[in-house]
């Protein structure tokens, strides 16, 4: 299963792209996070959340989504 990963705000700046496709398999949100932190080491310095199919999810959740968003700290308002 191919997943589309989108990068927002500061994370888009760190990865240098707004999205990419991954073909690797991940058990949990946490394992995808670890994978991406290895690929983009600057992510280690940042707290970020992951959304699956437009729902923000816990790190411990099973990874089931095909659209994954990386969301840096919220700073609206």
């Amino acid at each position, binding site marked *: 299963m191919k997943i589309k990963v*989108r990068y*927002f*705000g*500061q994370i888009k700046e760190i990865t240098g792209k707004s999205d990419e496709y991954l073909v690797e398999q991940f058990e949990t949100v946490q394992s995808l996070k670890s994978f991406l932190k290895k690929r983009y080491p600057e992510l280690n310095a940042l707290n970020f*959340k992951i*959304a699956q199919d*437009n*729902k*923000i999810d816990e790190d411990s959740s099973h990874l089931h989504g095909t659209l994954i*968003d990386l*969301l*840096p*700290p*919220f*700073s*609206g*308002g």
Partner: protein
Amino acid sequence: MKQKIKNIFVEGAIPPSKIAASIAHHQEKTKIGAHNIFLGQVRADQIEGKTVSAIEYSAQTEIANQVCHEIREATFSKYDLSCMHIYHSLGKVKAGEICFFVFVSSAHRKPVFDSLAELVNDIKEKLPIFGKEVFEDQSHQWKVNQ
């Protein structure tokens, strides 16, 4: 009746004329006795000798609108409000301009005071909106909410 999910985002700054139009629009709602409006304005903060000239906002708009919808419904259940309007800018908003507009109305003043601060705090905390503070020399940093 299930409420439709509204789009809170507007491109660029929120002009004072839009706020006036929104107020004027409520003059036919003659059960309303109290309005309370919060406006967020971009500050020209000084950081290490540099001055913020604008904030560029981006968002995961689908999640932001969905979460805002849930906050809106919860607030209507909790407080006796007649109306609630929420707008947030996307893109560039210059220092001194308005980027955030939250407007609640009720028959009496207590519900508007009780709900507005909670609503503003919830929106700032829970909506995936990202502010990039651009300095006068075009360098930037990412905004962190206090």
